[in-house]
C-alpha cells in the first residue's frame, strides 16, 4: 500500500516539477519577497520588520494560492482527462489514489515553501535583518497550514468542479482566518445564541490563525512549545478527518 501511495505521490511531484505554471508562481512569490526591500525602504522605522513581515506574508499567501489553485483540480483533472482509468485498473484503491495525490501535492508545496524560505533568508541577510528560530517556526507552521488547506481542496475536488471547489476552498480559507475573531465578537455580544453559534463555528471550521506566528517571529516575541505542536496536531487530526471524508465520497462516485 505504501509503495503504491509513494508511486502516485512521486508522480504528482514529478508533474509539478515539470510544469512551467508552478515555476511562474514561485518566481512571482520570490519577486514579492524581494519587493519587501523596496517597501521597507519607504519607511523610516522598523525597515527590517516590514521587510520580514512582507516576506512571511508572501510565503503564506502564495503558498495558500498554490495549494488551492492546484488542489481543487487534483482529482477532477484526473477524472476529466481520464488518466485515472488506467491507474484504478491496477491494484490501487481509490483511497490510495487520493492519499497519494494529496501527499504528492503537499510535498510539492513544501518544496516550494523551501525555495521561498531560501529567498526570504537571502533577502533578510542582504538587508541585515535578524534571523531567529522564531522565523523557522513561523515558516514551518505556514507549511503545516498548507497541508491542511490541501486536504480541504482535496475534499472539494473529490466531488465537484474546480470552479466550485475554488469558491468553497477560498471561502474556507477566509472563514478559517476569521473564525477566531468571530468567536471573540460573539462572546462580546452578550446574546447567548450568538455566543454559542460563533463558538460552534469556531469549533467546526479550522482555526487557521493558530498557524500564524508572523508577529511573534518578526517582533522576536517568545513562542511557547505548545503554540507549535498543538497546531501541528490539530492540522494532522483535521486533515485526516477531511481526507477520510474525501475518500468516503470518492469511493461512492461513478467515474464516467
Amino acid at each position, binding site marked *: 500500500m505504501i*509503495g*503504491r501511495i509513494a*508511486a*502516485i505521490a512521486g*508522480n504528482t511531484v*514529478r*508533474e509539478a516539477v*515539470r*510544469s512551467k505554471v508552478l515555476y511562474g508562481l514561485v518566481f512571482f512569490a520570490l519577486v514579492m519577497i524581494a519587493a519587501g526591500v523596496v517597501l521597507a525602504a519607504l519607511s523610516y522605522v522598523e525597515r527590517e520588520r516590514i521587510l520580514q513581515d512582507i516576506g512571511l506574508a508572501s510565503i503564506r499567501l502564495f503558498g495558500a494560492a498554490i495549494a488551492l489553485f492546484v488542489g481543487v483540480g487534483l482529482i477532477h483533472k484526473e477524472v476529466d*482527462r*481520464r*488518466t485515472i*482509468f*488506467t*491507474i*484504478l*485498473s*491496477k*491494484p*490501487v*484503491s481509490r483511497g*490510495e489514489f487520493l492519499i497519494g495525490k494529496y501527499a504528492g501535492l503537499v510535498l510539492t508545496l513544501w518544496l516550494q515553501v523551501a525555495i521561498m524560505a531560501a529567498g526570504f533568508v537571502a533577502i533578510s541577510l542582504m538587508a541585515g535583518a535578524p534571523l531567529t528560530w522564531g522565523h523557522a517556526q513561523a515558516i514551518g507552521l505556514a507549511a503545516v497550514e498548507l497541508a491542511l488547506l490541501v486536504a480541504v481542496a482535496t475534499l472539494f475536488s473529490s466531488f465537484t468542479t474546480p470552479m466550485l471547489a475554488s469558491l468553497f476552498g477560498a471561502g474556507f480559507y477566509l472563514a478559517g482566518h476569521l473564525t477566531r475573531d468571530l468567536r471573540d465578537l460573539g462572546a462580546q455580544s452578550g446574546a447567548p445564541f450568538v455566543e454559542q453559534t460563533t463558538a460552534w463555528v469556531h469549533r467546526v471550521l479550522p482555526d487557521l490563525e493558530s498557524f500564524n506566528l508572523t508577529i511573534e517571529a518578526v517582533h522576536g516575541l517568545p513562542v511557547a512549545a505548545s503554540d507549535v505542536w498543538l497546531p501541528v496536531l490539530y492540522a494532522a487530526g483535521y486533515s485526516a478527518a477531511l481526507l477520510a471524508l474525501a475518500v468516503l465520497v470518492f469511493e*461512492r462516485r*461513478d*467515474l*464516467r
Partner: protein
Amino acid sequence: MERAGDEIVRVRDVTKDFRPGLGLRRKRILHGISFSVRRGEIFGFVGPNGAGKTTTLKLLMGLIHATSGEAEILGHRVQESAYRRHVGFLPENPYFYDFLTGREILSFYAKLSGVSRADRAKRVAELLERVSLTHAADARLRTYSKGMLQRVGIAQALVHDPQVVFLDEPMSGLDPIGRKEIRDLILELHADGKTVFMNTHILSDVEMVCDRVAIIAEGRIRYEGPTEDFLGADRQVSDVVVTGIAPELIERFEQEYGAQVGGRGDHIELRVPEKHVSDLARAALGAGAELRSVTPHRVSLESIFLSAVEGGTGTPEPGERAQGQEGVS
C-alpha cells in the same frame, strides 16, 4: 459441462441507472445484463455506439457502480482492488500523463501493479520491444502519435503479466497496419493462455479473433455464444427469381427453407441459404414454375449484426446486396 471455475468474468442481472444533469429522473443504461467469459477465450463484446459497451467495461473495472446485480472477475467482486494485479485494462482512446516518457509511464504502472524493482526495468524494456516503441522509449508522451499512444496503452495493460485483459475498442483510430499489429498481439495473448475481453464495433475484427461474442443493444444482451454460430450460420445465401409460382408454394418455402420473399409482379425473388437452393429450385420447377435466375452472394457482417440488434433472423432483406463495409458505428 461448463465448470464455474472456468468463468473468468461473470455478470448477472446487472442494471445501471444514471441521473442525467441535476434532475431526479433516472435513465437506465443497462437493463439486467448477464453474460460470462471463459478462461483462455477471446470474447467480443459487440454493439453499436451508445449500446452500453463502455458502461459495462467501466463497471467491470470498478470505475462505476452497478445499480443492481452482480459482477465478478476471477471470483472477486469488481469493487475490490487487490485482484486487479491479475487484470489488464486498455480504455478507449487512452490518456496518459504526457509529461512522462514511454519508459517512465510503463515503470510507473509496473510499480502500481507490484512488479518488483529487480524485474521492472527488464519487463518495461521487453514490453517496449513487443509494442515496437523502443525507438521512442525516452521521448515524452506528448510527442507520440495516436497509434503510439494506443501501443503504450496495450503495454501498460500487460506490464504486470495479467491473466485477463480488457480492451475497449483496441483498434479504434488505427491505420490498417496498426490494426493488424494489435490483432496479432491479441492472438499472441490468446496463444499465451490469456483471457481477452474486447469491446468493439468492428465486425471483421470480431470474425478474425473472437471465440465467443455477446451482442449488446440498447443496454440488453441480444446474443451470447460462439462467433461461428453467430456469423457463420447461413452466411452464404442466394437470391432465386422465379415466375409462375403458386402462393401456397411460396408459403411452403418460407416455412421449410426460411425463404425471404421479395420481387415485383410475377417475378418472385426468394432469398434462401445456399444449402437449400437445389431443393427449392427442384420443387419450384416440379410445380410448374419457371426459374429465371439464381444469384449467390455473401451476407455482410453488418447485415447479420443489424439483424441481431433488431432481434431479426440474421439475414438481410431480398434485394439488399452484401456490402464491403463491416463496421457499424
